[in-house]
């Protein structure tokens, strides 16, 4: 049965079982591999995307539950002001190591900044604690979110 979703502003149609998590639709059907698989059980945040601007774990989100809401992935997050600021701060502060978790980190941070333009440490903890970074880039993630929020340059 064909499903149509709005992903990064484009209509995408595909065949997928309704209970299939959005993550695998993105990666294996649509070939959008920027969104990562880390745990499959909403424990790591690697698969984070935006649904109507909110950070959601796509590994446990059945594609049928998306309905007509807008999906944004790492490939397009830079089109939003918050996403672009986050990407820039990430590079300015050289947050990234292996980078595998960072699609999810950036999506979570962009959603945080869009909702809370000036987050304090506890806002950052609450928004980002679901995203694991095995390389341990947390110190710089926190710094980069603050820099993105303040518009400060490094």
């Amino acid at each position, binding site marked *: 049965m064909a499903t149509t979703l709005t992903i990064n502003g484009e209509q995408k149609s595909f065949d*997928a079982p309704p209970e299939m998590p959005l993550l695998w639709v993105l990666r294996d059907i649509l*070939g959008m591999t920027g969104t990562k698989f*880390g745990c*499959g059980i909403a*424990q790591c945040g690697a698969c984070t995307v935006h649904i109507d601007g909110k950070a959601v774990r796509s590994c446990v989100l059945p594609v049928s539950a998306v309905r007509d809401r807008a999906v944004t992935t790492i490939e397009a997050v*830079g089109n939003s002001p918050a996403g672009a600021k986050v990407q820039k701060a990430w*590079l300015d502060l050289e947050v990234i190591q292996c980078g*595998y978790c960072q699609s999810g980190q950036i999506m979570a941070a962009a959603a945080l900044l869009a909702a809370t333009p000036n987050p304090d440490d506890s806002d950052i903890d609450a928004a980002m604690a679901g995203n694991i970074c*095995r390389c341990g880039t947390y110190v710089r993630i926190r710094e980069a979110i603050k820099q993105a929020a303040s518009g400060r340059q490094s």
Partner: protein
Amino acid sequence: MLTTEKLRQENSADGVSRRALLTGGLATGFLLAFHLPLRAASYAVNEPVQPADVTAGKFAPNAFIRIDETGNTTLIMPQVEMGQGTYTSISMILAEELDADWTKVALLHAPPNDKLYGNPTFGLQVTGNSNSIRAWWKPLRTAGASARAMLVQAAAAEWQVDPASCTTSRGEVTHAASGRKLGYGALALAAQGQTPPKDVPLKDPKDFVYIGQPLKRLDTPEKVNGKAVYGIDALLPDMKFATVAACPVFGGKVAKVDDTAAQKVPGVRKIVVLDDTVAVIGDHMWAAKKGLAALKIEWDEGPNARIGSKEIWQHLRAASEKDGAVAKSVGDIAKGLATGDKFEASFEMPFLAHASMEPINATIHVKPDSCEVWTGTQIASRVQSEAAKAAGLPVEKVIVNNHLLGGGFGRKLEPDMVVAAVKIAKQVDYPVKVVWTREEDIQHDVYRPVYRDTVTATLVDGKVAAWKYKVAGSAVLARWLPPAFQKGIDIDAVDAAVDAPYDIPNFHVEYVRAEPPAVPTGFWRGVGPNNNVFAVECAMDELARKAGKDPVEFRRAMLANKPRALAVLNTAAEKANWGQPLPPRVGRGVCLQPSFETFIATVVEAEIDELGEVAVRRVVSVVDTGIAVNPDTVKAQIEGGLIFGLTAALYGEITIDKGRVQQSNFHDYRMLRIDQTPKIEVHVVKSGEPPGGIGEAGVNAGPPALRNAILAATGVALRRMPIDRSLIAMGKKA
């Protein structure tokens, strides 16, 4: 700046969207770039972001450098990028001696080829043991300098001047006397005809323009927008997706599979039954996962079905009572132990899984006469030869496309995932991407070994007079690189024990090889020093207490001959406000280590509540790694390494029951998260010594420094990792 992303654009612009062939030294005819057939799938092909290593029409003085006529400079990376920043540092070293234009640098992953890209330390292509920069420092500087000399010779010939009167900078040769300049691009073809110089001089470090600068990483721009391609992202025409279940009991086999229900799952294409693993191939990972869940698999659990952590620890403790092979002995240990105030303790380290964020995976296409592999590996050439064996093909018929790694940490020093994937892909004629679920990844790892290290020491006049140290644990090297295992000594297992920094007149280190029943072991970030830095530094703190000395003072008194170790210790103590008052239940702990030819001193400040819960408040590390090729990368690696080590100290343990791993995913194999992350301050010491290793030093600093902070705050001397909160809560004093 050209990045690998730029390369990809160029790549698709000229219509050749194949990686290429990476022929390197493999001049086999079938390795030719070709145009892709039209395809029905909705996605674009996702392959390694690189074109062929084309040498024609380029200046190609050696295996690492290609300069085309426009001056674009392609550097081929003998080591792999798994987050540690080595692609950038290696490029900086090459660019430094080449005097390349950094804005024109682009990178290629090296193909499998031990002859061209073998790690000089190991003689095979391997990224590990924090040695990429150490091993390649001289060879890559020489490669860069020699290429530069050939460009100068070409320019000098063109101008008919003495090469010695020419200078180079940022991709240009200049003859100052006549005011002439030529770019490397314009010189590329002429330089190709030059003879490489014999003994090429290297730069005086004071003239470095790139080395020592915090240059921006070359791999990160495409990691912020989803464009970076890891092994798990490979996409090919007509590919299918598979996932696996291996026998949960180590060493067990498949007995029987009922696939009636699985065959009916929409999108399931094929069930593949191997010796010890069942795979389901489907149209996507979801179909494969559902298919796997629908299988009824009976396992023949084999001889290990009764093994549990209890037996494993009994086995190790018994082994550690035996005499070991002597790895080092200075002075007279028997005499030394006969006098003074005696101390004895054993320190135990658990099994650990790697849990790279990118679960293990491999994409394979087996054809009648070839096999192609897409994966991210730390051992490209070994993957090639193991894939060849599994496919039943000659090694030159196997193409390996290496990728960025979503973390390696030693897990990708093993070829097992590729071998299993080849066996699966052999059953079909289309390409298959095999992705392990997190559960399978954690339960079928090669684990950081359990270790038990026993210290017997004596104190005379407040100093350690005798030190007998015995390591008991796996000899990972004996399996992984058998020729390196000599005279019963695993040089990795005793690393950082034989070279503990302290002046001790009677110093003796032994090693007992003890392979745990059932459980496969492997290298884990920090490797051998993992266990030894922990045991040595914990014992030093207990000895300091016994001597009634401050832990920093106590160490200082034994470092007269180790100025670099002493200097980092002193700076760390100062930066961390060592000795200043702290609130109740807050303590500071120190760790000093020379490992991977890097000296690092770390102070952890932690608060421990009445229930034994530990909050790490602050970490200060001072690191002397010799010349820091990229000081920001050094800082980042220490920061990340500390988190990796603290994660292990706070949570890390793989336990075994009935021959199987009890943990399965991040809910029960926990990782430190941002809300538990302390303030981390890393100070990089300026040094002119040759570069040391940096990817693992921080990992080993975390656990002993934290454990010593707990000792300072509570008086409880933990002797086993991970931290046992109940022991702290009970307040059992040392």
